[in-house]
C-alpha cells in the first residue's frame, strides 16, 4: 500500500494511536479516496492539530477515529483498546472516553431539548437515567464552560447565540470526563471575538479535565495558537508533522509553505510571502500518482510522479513527506 510512513509515531507514550488509516467512500462516480493511509498519535495532555483545505480528508479522519463510520482499513487504538475490532456494544462503551465537537454548534444540538437535557444525555446513554449526581454534574459542566446553570437550564438551543451553543456542546463533551476530544472546526462558524472565547475555553477545559485534543481546522493561525503538534494534510495524505513552532518557522513541505504564505495577516506592515502555487485540488476520485501535491508543486519532477515520498525526520520531531523539502525558514530574518 502507498503508505506515507510511520517513523514519527511514539509507541510508548500515546493515549491514541492511529495507523494506516484509510477512508474510502463508494459513489456513483467511483471510489472517493478521502484518507489514504495516514498515521499519527496523541500523548496525554497534548493537542494535535490536523490542518488542510477542503477535501484534504481531515474531517473524514476525525470521524473515522470515532468509528462514524469505521475506517475502510487501519487501526485506531485508544488506551489499550483497538476500536476497529470491537463489536457494537463494546464500541459504545469504549467511546465514552472519546468525544467529539462539531463545526455548527446550533445544528449539533436537538432544537426540542432543554439545555440541561442536552448536557445530561451522555450520562443517560452511558450510565443510565437514575444517577443521583446527574443534576450536580450537569451544573458543574455548565459552570465550567462559563454558562450560568440557573439562566440556561431550561432554555432551548435557539434561545442562545452560536458561541453559547458551542459552550453547551463543550459542556456535553466534558460531562463524561473523556480522555480524548476530537474538535472538528469548532470555531470556524463563529465571529472572531467569540472564537477567541471558545479557544480560551478549550484550553481551560483541557487543563481542568486533563483532556487530549485532536483539533481539526483549516485556519492555520488558530491551529498554531492551540496545538502542540501539527499535521498538515493534502488530498488524503500527510505532508508534514512537526511541533507547531518548528512547522511555522521552518516549513519543509512546499504545500505547508503555500498554506502559511496564504494566511491574510491583519497587519498592513507584515511581510507578505509570495505564493508559488496555482491551480486547484485534483479530484479525490482519481488522485495523482506518487506525491499527490506534485500537480501544483513548483518543485515537482519525474521522481515525484513515480515514487511516493515517505515521512522522514528533518529535525527533532519534525517529519516531512517530500522528495525536495525546503531547508530555509519561511521568512528571512530582518
Amino acid at each position, binding site marked *: 500500500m502507498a503508505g506515507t510512513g510511520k517513523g514519527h509515531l511514539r509507541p510508548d507514550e500515546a493515549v491514541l494511536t492511529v495507523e494506516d488509516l484509510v477512508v474510502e467512500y463508494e459513489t456513483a462516480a467511483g471510489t472517493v479516496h478521502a484518507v489514504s493511509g495516514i498515521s499519527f498519535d496523541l500523548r496525554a495532555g497534548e493537542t494535535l492539530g490536523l490542518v488542510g483545505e477542503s477535501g484534504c480528508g481531515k474531517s473524514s479522519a476525525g470521524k473515522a477515529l470515532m468509528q462514524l463510520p469505521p475506517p475502510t482499513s487501519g487501526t485506531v487504538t485508544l488506551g489499550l483498546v483497538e476500536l476497529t475490532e470491537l463489536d457494537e456494544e463494546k464500541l459504545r462503551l469504549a467511546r465514552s472516553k472519546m468525544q467529539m465537537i462539531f463545526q455548527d454548534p446550533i445544528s449539533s444540538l436537538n432544537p426540542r431539548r432543554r439545555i440541561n437535557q442536552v448536557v445530561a444525555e451522555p450520562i443517560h446513554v452511558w450510565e443510565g437515567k437514575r444517577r443521583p449526581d446527574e443534576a450536580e454534574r450537569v451544573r458543574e459542566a455548565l459552570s465550567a464552560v462559563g454558562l450560568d446553570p440557573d439562566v440556561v437550564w431550561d432554555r432551548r438551543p435557539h434561545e442562545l447565540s452560536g458561541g453559547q451553543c458551542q459552550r453547551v456542546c463543550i459542556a456535553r463533551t466534558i460531562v463524561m470526563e473523556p480522555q480524548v476530544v476530537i474538535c472538528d472546526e469548532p470555531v470556524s462558524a463563529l465571529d472572531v471575538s467569540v472564537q477567541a472565547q471558545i*479557544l480560551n475555553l478549550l484550553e481551560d477545559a483541557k487543563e481542568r479535565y486533563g483532556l487530549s485534543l485532536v483539533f481539526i481546522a483549516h485556519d492555520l493561525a488558530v491551529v498554531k495558537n492551540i496545538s502542540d503538534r501539527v499535521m498538515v494534510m493534502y488530498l488524503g495524505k500527510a505532508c508534514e508533522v512537526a511541533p507547531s513552532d518548528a512547522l511555522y518557522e521552518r516549513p519543509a513541505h512546499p504545500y505547508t509553505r503555500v498554506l502559511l504564505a496564504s494566511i491574510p495577516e*491583519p497587519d498592513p506592515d507584515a511581510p507578505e510571502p509570495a505564493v508559488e502555487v496555482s491551480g486547484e485540488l485534483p479530484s479525490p476520485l482519481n488522485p495523482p500518482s506518487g506525491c499527490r501535491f506534485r500537480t501544483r508543486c513548483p518543485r515537482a519532477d519525474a521522481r515525484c510522479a513515480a515514487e511516493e515520498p515517505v515521512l522522514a525526520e528533518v529535525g527533532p520531531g519534525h517529519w516531512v513527506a517530500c522528495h525536495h523539502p525546503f531547508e530555509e525558514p519561511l521568512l528571512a530574518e530582518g
Partner: protein
Amino acid sequence: MSPATEGDVLLQVDDLRTTFHTAGGDVAAVSGVSLTVRRGQTVGIVGESGSGKSVFVRSVMGLTGLTPTAEVTGRVMFDGRELSGLRPKELRSVWGPEIGMIFQDPMTSLNPVKKIGAHFAQPLRQHLGLSRKDARTRAAELLAEVGIPEPVRRLDQYPHELSGGMRQRVCIALALACRPKLLIADEPTTALDVTVQRQILDLLAQVTADTGMATIIITHDLGVVARRADDIVVMYAGRAVETAPVGPVFRRTAHRYTEALLASVPRVANPPHTRLAAIPGTPPDLRRAIHGCAFAPRCAHADDACRGERPLLVPVDGDEGHLAACVHPATDDVPVGTPTGGAS
C-alpha cells in the same frame, strides 16, 4: 494609500438608516452610516455578524427595495445621480452596468440549471446590445480575463461542474461584464480555502487596477483588507465606529472595539497556547434601543460617559481623515516605553 483627488467622489452616502419591521419588533440594522468612495478607490467595510455591513451595501444599491419589511432613509448619490428613493424597476439600469456585485456563496449566485455562457447573455445582450454570437465571444474573453482555463469549453458547462474558486471567478467575470464603475464584493472569499482566497483577492486587486473600478470589500476578516484597501470602515451594531485610511486603523487604532477586535485575532506569530484577548459578551440585540455607545457593555474602558449619549464620529488627534466614535479612544492612552512623542 493613494488618496484620489477631492471632488473625484463616485459614491456618497449620507446618514443611511435601514429598519426591518418584523413580527418580533423593529430591527435597526443600520443606524446612520455615511460613506464616501472615490473613483478607483478600494474601501473595506469590516464587522462581525449582525454589524449591518451587508444590509448597508444592499441598502445603498437599493436591493432592500425588494424586501417589503425594509425601510431605508438617507441619501445615496452615485456618479452624480441620486439613487435613494428609486424603485427596483428604475434601478435595473444601475445594477450591472453601473454597480456590479459579487456575493459570498458563488454556488447560490449562479443559476444551477443555466450553463455558464447563458449567465452572460443577459448583461451582454440586454445592457450592451451585443448579438448572440458576439456575446458568446465576449463571455469567453471575460472568463479568460479572470484566469479560467479553457474558457470556451466552460461556456457550455453548468455551475456544479466547476469548483468553488472557479465559480467565484465566473461571478467576478459576470460582475465585470458591463465594466461597472463600482464593484461591491460581499465576503467574496469567506466560502473559499485560504490558497484559493489568496488567488481571488489577487485577481480582484488586478482587475480593479486594470479597469480603474472602485471597489467596496465587505468582510469579517481584518486580514483580507489589511493590505488591499485604501480606506477602512469598522462597523458595530449597525453603526460606523471608526473610519480611516488603512494605515491609521491598524497603527493608530482609536476605537476600543477596533482595538479589541484586532487583539482577539489569533496570530501566526503567537507561541502555542497563547491566551487570546477575547471580547466578553455578545453584540447587542438590535430590536432594543441602544443608549450611548453600543460597545460599552463589552468594553473594558467604558464608564458613565459612554452610556449617556451616542458618541459621534470625530477626528482623532485632529486628523480629519481618521474618525472614531469613542469617548475614551485608545489614542488617548499614555504611550508606554518609547517616549518618542508623536501621540499627544
